């Protein structure tokens, strides 16, 4: 009976292809390299809804270990790694679309997580056991108890708040919706005042003299970059023209020079000087997705997100702009945590 044969072939084909397998989620290439010397953590943001956020460790010789969190914990980190901070021998990784902050020890073993956040962006320690977490959609800053790893209070800011910095007992939080800085009392947990800034504030730094600097992009798609200088004591402000096109603002280790980048060039500007000067040019193929200055060495780290659908790269330059090394990391690297 040919009919019977067909049925058997079919059954065998089905049985053959249905061997039990554990690997049914997304899979990734594995690397295993020995590292030495000082290391830096690369924050690989990953694609939205791909769940491919990860950590890479890069040592001073340019050797890399990828999938550091996955390897240490046997589980993925989460979706959209927005930022990370080291505080008191713990790392705090903000997973935007997972709505949580993952807390690890210095060997990247997870020791806990802070959940119940809507769309968290940045993490700022404001005391030994207290931190603020900003959010895109909740219109609030969450106040975290770092011992309990729970949200103990919220501060209503009524808008999308991004980066935060602490200066003279006040938190300065970048309000993206209203183009201002919200000044928050971290003890009273309330907004005490605000300072208007030009459109599209994208990064904030405080120099060695206590002056606040805000990089502004002009807003989504506007590309009208301005540097805004605020003297918090006198409330005097100044708008400066810049050649920046990437929105990032960094300081040198002495905190007396601002460092920023266009799509092909890195600039520095003494905080008390008059103008900017070019430090070096880099390959225009690099898509500047993160820009950091190592506060210990002054090395400049540019993280390149390539074309967003493949793994990125990190390019490291010394203060004079000589390329030290470049190395392949995870998806959409957006920042570096130095430790």
């Amino acid at each position, binding site marked *: 009976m040919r*009919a019977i044969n067909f049925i058997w072939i079919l059954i065998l084909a089905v049985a053959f292809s*249905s061997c039990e397998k554990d690997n*049914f*989620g997304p*899979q990734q290439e594995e690397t295993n390299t020995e590292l030495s010397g000082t290391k830096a953590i690369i924050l690989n943001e990953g694609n939205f809804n791909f769940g491919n956020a990860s950590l890479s460790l890069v040592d001073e010789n340019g050797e890399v270990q990828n999938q550091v969190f996955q390897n240490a914990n046997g*589980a993925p980190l989460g979706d959209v790694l927005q930022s990370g901070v080291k505080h008191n021998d713990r790392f705090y990784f903000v997973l935007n679309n997972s709505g949580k902050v993952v807390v690890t020890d210095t060997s990247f073993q997870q020791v806990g997580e802070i959940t119940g956040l809507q769309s968290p962006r940045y993490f700022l320690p404001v005391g030994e056991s207290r931190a603020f977490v900003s959010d895109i959609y909740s219109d609030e800053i969450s106040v975290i108890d770092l011992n309990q790893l729970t949200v103990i209070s919220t501060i209503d800011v009524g808008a999308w708040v991004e980066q935060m910095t602490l200066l003279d007992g006040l938190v300065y939080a970048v309000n993206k919706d209203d183009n201002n800085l919200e000044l928050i009392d971290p003890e009273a947990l309330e907004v005490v005042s605000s300072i208007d800034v030009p459109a599209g504030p994208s990064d904030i730094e405080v120099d060695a003299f206590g002056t606040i600097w805000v990089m502004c992009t002009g807003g989504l798609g506007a590309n009208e970059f301005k540097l805004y200088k605020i003297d918090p004591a006198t409330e005097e402000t100044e708008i400066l023209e810049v050649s920046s096109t990437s929105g990032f603002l960094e300081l040198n280790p002495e905190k007396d020079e601002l460092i920023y980048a266009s799509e092909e060039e890195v600039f520095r500007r003494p905080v008390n000087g008059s103008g900017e000067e070019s430090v070096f040019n880099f390959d225009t193929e690099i898509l500047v997705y993160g820009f950091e200055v190592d506060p210990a060495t002054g090395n400049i780290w540019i993280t390149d997100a390539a074309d*967003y*659908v493949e*793994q990125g790269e990190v390019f490291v330059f010394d203060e004079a702009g000589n390329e030290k090394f470049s190395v392949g990391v995870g998806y959409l690297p957006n920042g570096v945590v130095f430790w």
Partner: protein
Amino acid sequence: MLTLRITLIVLLLPAVLAAQNDTGMVIVPQLDHADVIALENFEAHKEQTFDSLAFEDPLLFDLDDLIAARTPVFIKQYGNSGIATAGFRGTGAVHTSVLWNGLDVNSPTLGQSDLNTFPLAFSERVNVTYGISSLPQSSGGLGGTISLDDQLRFVEQTNAKVRLGYGSFAKMEGMGKISWGSERWQFETGIFHRQAENDFTFADPSRVDLPTDTMQNADYTISGVSQSVGFKPNDRNIFNFHLNATKADRTIPGILLSPGKYSQQWDENVRGVLEWKHVREKSIHRLQSGFTFDKLDYQGDEFSNTNSSSWQSQYRGLFLLNEKWKLRTLAQHRIYFAESDGYSSSHRQNRTILSSTIERETKSNRVFLTLREERIDDIFSPFLFSVGAVQQLFGGLSLKANAGRNYRYPAFNDLYWNPGGNPDLEPEEGWSAEVGLNWERTDAGERTTFTHQLGINYYHSLIENWILWSPKENIWQPQNLWKVRNRGVEVNLSEKIESGNWRLNIDLQYSYTSTENIEESAANEGMQLIYVPFHTARAVANAKWKSWTARVQYAYNGKRYIAADHSSWMPFFSTTDLSLGKEFEIGNDRLSCFFTINNLLDQNYQVMPWRPMPGRNFMVNLIYEFKSGVKQ
């Protein structure tokens, strides 16, 4: 130059009318006669046709089920209830043209269709056409075209069908159709509803030790109605009106790594078309005018609303020039309109389409040439064509070849999305050629009849100006970035065996797809595009013994890369579904009962990353057919 092209096409028309005086075959003057319907169908190089499945096959409910299980097309399924889109031969969802009774029903904003919102209950016939051979029907289907058609039969009848089902995860489904009328009037009313809690359990690979978890926030409700009215005053004229409306309310869970997150999507689709078919001695004319209306509300972290509509009118003519030559003409005008929270203003688009197909057919061969020109607002399409031939060889073998040029105009979102929309986008242009060998044979024995069919097809196509959204100046923007080469082999084998009380149908399909960007110096040059499996295979076996039926369907989808540099991927998955049924004759009526096991082998799988699919689950279906009063 452009004007000349258009004129050439138009000039063909009067030539045809003059040619009608030739002697030759005469069309049976009865429009709903099977011969006439067959004559109207244009046989494509590679196509699959499915007839009235919804009330026969409990494994299929909507278009998504059908395409995923019975064609080699890869369906991107965003979870068990979410959006499902079709990509033919390594192309994307935007390269799949979807037609409903001749109307273009792809969303003008997205340029694609969610197959989850097309129930099979409403469509008597689903035709799936691959590659360039879809050009005579529509442009833009660089991958292929799915065409859904309602058909009324003008017979004295009162006929009703009901299908009810209940299954795991509180899944409830029902559909019904009543057809009644005479040789002059026909009325057909349809209704369907499907809902599920969808709270299935799954193994969670995002956590250590694969704990079992329960899906939350994945419930859906989708329902709809359809109405057709047909009027046949005489054998030369038919007026048909078809209307259908569907409404879907779906909760779309976030990925496993964003637990607790979900979004809500509400779709409303209304479509209607009025047509007049007129048959003369040597020609058939069809005049149609219809509308589509689509509303999509989405609540994620923020709310968005999109409304789009279209008004589409067309004339289609078929002229028998003589015994061998046929000419098909098409003139269409389509107006698309869309407004969205994502646009800074509403947008409108006018499309005018002229197309002719000349066809010569003898007993042993058939050749055809299609010419097509479109104008979108003030822009003329490239000159589109498709040329093909079929040659009967010996012993049931036939050889086919088809080649041509197609194009796809960017969708509204590509052009107008704020921010990022790029009004300077060029249309995508596709060149394509394919060749196929087909073998068919029937062995009729004393007790047993075997029908064998084997087809092998090879295609090669190139899509230039491939539109890709990618970051530029910190904003995602669509650009004409890639040149994509698609090559592949499709093999299908089917066996029909009839022996005494036994009927057995087996259908096996395999396809190999190689799709790569060949744009020089691109980072992914020469690498398989993401989400395109190299290998897909399908098997369906359908056995009937007296009043018992058994169906098994098996689908295999190979490894898909999910990063352009191939650094991450989704492993292969396969599913097996089994359905057992028994029919009871109750007077003139027929009751069929089915028991179905989906994912029989309880495989853990994900089609898209971190979106789990259900394990083994069950369904019971009853199908009742009231056949009283049917006069053939």
